[in-house]
């Protein structure tokens, strides 16, 4: 009897409630990660899938064509319970002004899914939802009626597409070439003009450059003529569309990126479209104020920045770690240094950003400009934010990560291995280079991957040191010296911030932001996971040195 009472008391004080509470905290943490990932996955992957267009007829007679976006319960104004409403994407920004519309469910009379509804993805003004009425070529009717037009479209789209390709080549290659040469010549001329004492040959050079510039100018106007001709040809074809509410809209075929009839597609076709859109997202430049198109320049900028950062951070970090662990005399000084390094890891990234701005951009960049690019001043070359400065800033930001992990790796190499090498007559450097560093390489590599993962997701310091919403040209191109490290660049993380918070039409831009977010998370998580796996693999491979 007494025993059972005691057991009961023991049971009460065993704190299982507390255990459950700690379990609750863990569950909340897991719930947060899971929720976030599911949220981003569902939003980020769904946007490329062509959803059905529905035609909503309201009781007041108005008709809307659009895709259902979300449902919401709202309080009635008189407080008599809730009513449900739908948000539909009606697109046609140039007609309605807004991309979205709220409709009360109670107001809807009927919903149908018209098979002939057509979606146009356009170069500007976003998508167009409606029905084709006719296709014209310089006012000459080519096809009339929805089905006839759609049947005729591929042929003409193809034709326009070929013209567009030519136009693109002229714009992106020939005109760019000319303007690049012109800029180079102008700079050359300016630097000659800035000389203190000009010789005769200098003056001749100036005249010569003038002649070359003139020639380029003629070449330019010629190309421009050609371009205008091509454009008028491409702009001959006009697709007349009707919005569901009856407004007509003429759209140049040249402005259409893609067209499809979502209600008339099977799963296979939809999958094809999904892949095409996903590919466009990954491989195209953005358009329509970054709200549509792709993110290739941002991917490119992110990757190049990370590469430059890695080139800077690995030698620096490893050198520092080797110093701290192998060469420095262990004592108070090294202890202070170690605290400083650990401290640097905790310094807010924006502080690094502002340091990069003050030191790299203004001090170093400004000096480089005065020494080597005096002819283009006051326009800064290196004295303004650019990919090199952003990368170096991130290298500083991430170097503590590499130092700490590399040091851990060095510390893990057993003393016996080092002593063995030294006893066989190797110098300290040889021991380090041939024996210690290879064994520590997994840690160094892990450090690098962690640094890259941190750098890929960091945005605040970049905003200060050279990231832009739309870079006119990539940091690598076909013009000498091919890698232009002074150029501004785009970045996936900044793209999220910019499109999500600075774009004029945030609602319409959200799908783009989700997709970019997913891509960034994918890159960062993949890097982190690869760090984990690589560490394991390399540890096994070099396990022999731990004998």
């Amino acid at each position, binding site marked *: 009897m007494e025993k059972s009472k005691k057991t009961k008391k023991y049971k009460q*004080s*065993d*704190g*299982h409630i507390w*255990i*459950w509470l*700690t*379990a*609750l905290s*863990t*569950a909340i943490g*897991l*719930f*947060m*990660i899971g929720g*976030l990932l599911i*949220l981003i996955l569902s939003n980020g992957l769904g946007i490329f899938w062509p959803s059905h267009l529905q035609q909503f007829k309201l009781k007041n007679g108005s008709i809307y064509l659009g895709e259902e976006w979300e449902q919401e*319960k709202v309080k009635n104004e008189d*407080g008599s319970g809730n009513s449900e409403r739908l948000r539909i994407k009606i697109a046609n920004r140039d007609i309605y002004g807004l991309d979205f519309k709220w409709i009360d469910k109670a107001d809807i009379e009927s919903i149908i899914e018209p098979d002939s509804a057509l979606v146009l993805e356009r170069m500007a003004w976003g998508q167009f939802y409606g029905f084709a009425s006719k296709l014209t070529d310089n006012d000459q009717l080519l096809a009339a009626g929805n089905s006839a037009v759609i049947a005729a479209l591929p042929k003409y789209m193809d034709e326009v597409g070929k013209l567009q390709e030519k136009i693109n080549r002229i714009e992106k290659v020939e005109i760019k070439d000319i303007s690049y040469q012109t800029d180079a010549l102008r700079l050359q001329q300016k630097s000659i003009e800035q000389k203190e004492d000009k010789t005769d040959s200098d003056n001749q050079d100036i005249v010569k450059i003038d002649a070359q510039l003139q020639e380029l100018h003629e070449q330019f106007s010629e190309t421009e003529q050609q371009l205008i001709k091509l454009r008028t040809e491409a702009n001959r074809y006009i697709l007349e569309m009707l919005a569901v509410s009856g407004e007509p809209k003429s759209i140049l075929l040249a402005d259409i990126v893609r067209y499809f009839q979502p209600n008339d597609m099977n799963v296979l076709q939809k999958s094809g479209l999904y892949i095409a859109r996903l590919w466009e997202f990954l491989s195209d430049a953005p358009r329509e104020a970054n709200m549509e198109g792709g993110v290739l320049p941002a991917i490119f900028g992110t990757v190049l920045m990370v590469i430059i950062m890695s080139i800077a951070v690995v030698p*620096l970090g490893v*050198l*520092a770690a080797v*110093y701290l662990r*192998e*060469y420095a005399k262990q004592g108070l000084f090294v202890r202070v*240094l170690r605290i*400083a390094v650990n*401290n640097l*890891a*905790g*310094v*807010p*990234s*924006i502080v690094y*950003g502002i*340091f990069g*701005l003050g*030191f790299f951009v203004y*001090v170093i960049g400004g000096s480089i400009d005065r020494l080597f690019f005096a002819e283009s001043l006051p326009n800064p070359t290196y004295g303004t934010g650019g990919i090199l400065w952003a990368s170096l800033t991130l290298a500083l930001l991430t170097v503590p990560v590499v130092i700490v992990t590399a040091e851990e790796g060095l510390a893990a190499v057993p003393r016996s291995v080092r002593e063995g090498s030294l006893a066989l007559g190797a*110098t300290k*450097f*040889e021991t380090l280079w041939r024996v210690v560093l290879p064994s520590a390489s997994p840690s160094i590599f892990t450090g690098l991957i962690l640094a890259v*993962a941190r750098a890929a*997701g*960091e*945005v*605040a310091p970049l*905003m*200060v040191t050279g990231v832009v919403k739309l870079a006119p040209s990539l940091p690598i191109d076909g013009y000498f010296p091919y890698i232009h490290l002074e150029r501004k660049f785009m970045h996936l*993380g900044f793209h*999220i*911030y910019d499109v*999500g*918070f600075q774009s004029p039409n945030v609602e319409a831009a959200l799908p783009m*932001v989700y997709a970019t*977010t997913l891509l*960034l998370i994918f890159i*960062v*998580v993949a890097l982190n*996971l690869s760090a984990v796996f690589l560490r394991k693999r390399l540890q096994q491979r070099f396990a022999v040195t731990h004998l």
Partner: protein
Amino acid sequence: MKKKASAQQKHDQMSFQESQQWRKRKFFDRIARWIVNAGGGLIIASVLGLLLLFVVVIWPLWQSAKVGPAQEITPSFLANKPIIAISSDEYEKIAHILTLDGVVHFYDFEAKKELATDSIALRSGEAIKSVWRSTNTENFAFGTNQGRVVQYTVKFNTRFNEGERSYAPTISVLNQVEMSPDAPEITNLAVVTEGEGNVVIAAVSSANTILLYSKQAAEESFFAEDEPSEVFGVIDGLPASPTQLDIGEGAQALFVGLESGQILKYAINDVSQPERIEEVQGTHNAITMMDFLLGERSLVVGSELGELSIWFEAFNPDGTGARKLRQAHEMTAHASAISSFSASQRNRSFLVGSEDGTLSLQHATNERLLWQNKVSNSAIKLISMTPKGTGALIVDAVNEVHFFPVENPHPETGFSAFFGKIWYEGYSKPDYIWQSSGGSDDFEPKLSLIPLIFGTIKGTIYALLFALPIAVLAAIYVSQFMHWSVKSIVKPSMEIMAALPSVVIGFIGGLWLAPRIQPILPGVLSAILLTPAVAILFSILWKKLPEHIQRRLTAGSEAFVLLPIILLIGYFCIAISHSIEAWLFGGDFQLWLQTSANVSYDQRNAFVVGLVMGFAVIPIIFTIAEDALTNVPRSLTAASLALGATPWQTAWHIVLPSASPGIFSAAMIGLGRAVGETMIVLMATGNTPVMDWNIFNGFRTLSANIAVEIPEAPMGGTLFRTLFFAALLLFGMTFIVNTGAELVRQRVNKKYGKI
């Protein structure tokens, strides 16, 4: 023998080769040592360089102004004709000088030669008795002994021709007004032009009355006459004789300084019926100088004893009442009567001179004395700060002219401006305000860092309030109770959460969570209360179950049992949110907050930031705390369990105290992350620099402020340097926190090393 010799030779050769190779290896070794040491030096250099750069950039903020050395530029053509007005062009090369005989000289004081002269014809027997210069335009006016007021404007007409500046300075008379048919002597005046051709003149006549005049330019209307309308008016019955006049508030108000020290304010929107609307005792001594600062809202009042004060119209300190003239600042006094004044046209600084020849440069808003010196043996009669504020022309009583270079780049700053309450123009009381840029030219930057520090602390506290308990409790669970097979999945996935880019978290917080939380706030709040309660209830019920079921289901996986429960509670709370709102808060929670708790609701607020900052902070605290808990030696827990303690008793009384320094260190590092986090707060708060603990308001942190403002801050400017100072503060805050955590960590390592 021969063989031996050849062997010897061979050996020598080999050792020679070997030693050469050895030397080479030694050489490489030395080089490597040198490079590695240099690398070590590089870390030290970069840490020091970082600090040094900040110090170099910030240093000028704390420096006083530099004035002088003076250059004497007294023109030779004056021949003792007293100078009564002076000004300079913006390049500080040409001076405009008006002498008592009505002649205007343009004087190149760099080359010391006269460029041009012009004169304003005076009638026979007419003499100039008083002069007026407007605060921020090149308009001048003088009053004569025959009751006439002449207003003219100076144009330096600077032209650039192939990098060379040339001048064609001219004057043009804007207005000539006979103030009264009696032709009284005008001893003091104020003239203001408003818009096109409108002018208001106030002039003290020798009879101690103030004559008023206004001219409205002809309106281009159908019915109005073509002639401009002129109106005259008179103010008399003054309590003492007027010494200073100023017209302000868009020519709607006249301020009169009296010999008795009073300041009177008249409404002169209709000059024929001036109305005295205010009367304050500005000083107890005669007012000898009264003039506007830039923006024409603050009056600087100087007395015959050298006292200086700043006055402007403001509400009562509690924000009520009518706007009244109130003394906002007491400036550093001079030893004798204030005789001359010139306001900067760039900021709220001014130069003031006194009878004993002392000149001082002061900044009104933060009451900072930037520079003071005795520059002349006689009274300083005229001061003219150049348009860029980088120089001043000074004329003393013996008619000597000096040019003083002025270097005053950052007068608005200083310790009191950053950390003290400052009474800004137009505000009802001194306050902490951050507002770095504004629309108009005369906008005054308000650079108090206190609201930003407050915002940083607020964000950190709300973030930790949510993150700390969850992270630490989860660490206890995962390290002590969770099944090892699950742990190997849960821990890395928590760590992956640490790698989520903060821009993603900020985006989710600002654009997904914030608008969704707003309508279901009562549901969210009830979920926060309900979840732990339900979990406790569930645990009690669980205990009631037969033991074999308990054994079967929970083997260190309680967390997974709870996951669906969290989901259910969340769904339930959101579903009943509207009902709770209708039942408890009269149908509208935000309205209820506003009316009964006087709390306003911003969509992006500290609550949202607290929640999403958890994504950034929880994994950090969790990982470090979990490591600390796991590292507690097994022997301790084993001993505790062997002595009969329950797992929870062991965890609470043995493991937790042993690991507490590590958990403290984890919390500190989490704190450091929250303090410096930029993108999350930038995106998930409204970034308004308000000081309010309200959880449903936004705030602005130091870090977000830097990110928002640095792109617009010109290099080397006050804002640029102030933002660097903010960054240094942030650095300092995290430095203290991180060093604390690091010291604790090192100590813990030592302690466990012994066990």
